[in-house]
């Protein structure tokens, strides 16, 4: 559909977008009190990394597209991470009857 990606959009635009997304993810990760939101923030960060990888793959490595391969790997790992994370969350919820991150502090000294 779109022939060239080296059009009006510079590579930096993608990178800045990704950094913004990453920082929002970090902030959410630190400040979320709902455990599900923490998982969502992690997904946001992973996606920011993916945008970076895809942008590099398209602008700097157009023929070998190693970035796309890495993105596929990241997507795979993210899926596994989400599944295990949510399973942990469920068993936590079953034991503590809350999803508040502040109450998961049994290992705190």
């Amino acid at each position, binding site marked *: 559909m779109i022939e060239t990606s080296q059009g009006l959009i510079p590579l930096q635009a993608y990178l*800045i977008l990704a*950094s913004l*997304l*990453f920082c929002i993810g970090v902030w959410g990760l630190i400040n979320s009190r709902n455990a*599900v939101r923490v998982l969502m923030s992690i997904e946001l960060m992973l996606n920011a990394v993916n945008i970076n990888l*895809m942008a590099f793959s398209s602008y700097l490595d157009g023929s070998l597209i190693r970035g*796309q391969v890495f993105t596929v790997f990241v997507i795979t790992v993210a899926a596994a991470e989400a599944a295990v994370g949510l399973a942990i969350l469920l068993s936590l919820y079953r034991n503590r009857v809350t999803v*508040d991150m502040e109450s998961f502090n049994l290992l705190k000294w």
Partner: protein
Amino acid sequence: MHIAQYTELICFIILGAVIIIGSLGVVLLNNIVYSAFLLGGVFMSIAGLYLLLNASFVAAAQVLVYVGAVNVLIIFAIMLVNKREELSPIKGLKLRRFISGGVCACLLGLLIRVNLTTKWNMPGPASIGEGSTVRIGEHLFTDYLLPFELASVLLLMAMIGAIVLARRDVLNTDEETQEKINQEIIEEKKQPLLIDQSS
């Protein structure tokens, strides 16, 4: 074709705006269900970005895995644990948020500076466009074979782990003593198993 380029630019701006606003909503909204649905929107716009970058296969994979699996899983989890609970207030929460916000802003500034000052090796080789699906396959089965196999093992492990973690252990008989387990005890486990010491 000027129009194609402008269309691309407009698409990028719209998608970027949706991504940023959506992710802010994911992080800031009070209603967790709203943020989960917004997360789906963010994932889809990121897939749109991949389409702009001539990577239709990865875009489809993004939609399939992130929207179709991860997001649905998250929404499922929210529906399962969605009990309206009043979070206990914490001292200095606002200060904490402010400080972490500052740290994140610093990180953002650093990242943007790196982005803008680095001399990228532009322009790279021409994009292969539609041939990327085949190229990804070649990569996966030649130079990235080991990571590929490892990823599949990881997926298997994650699947089994998730099932083991999430299933309720409802056994009819005790495995060691072969005695019958009273099912009501398992089902009526309403109070937390671990004693909450924070309050």
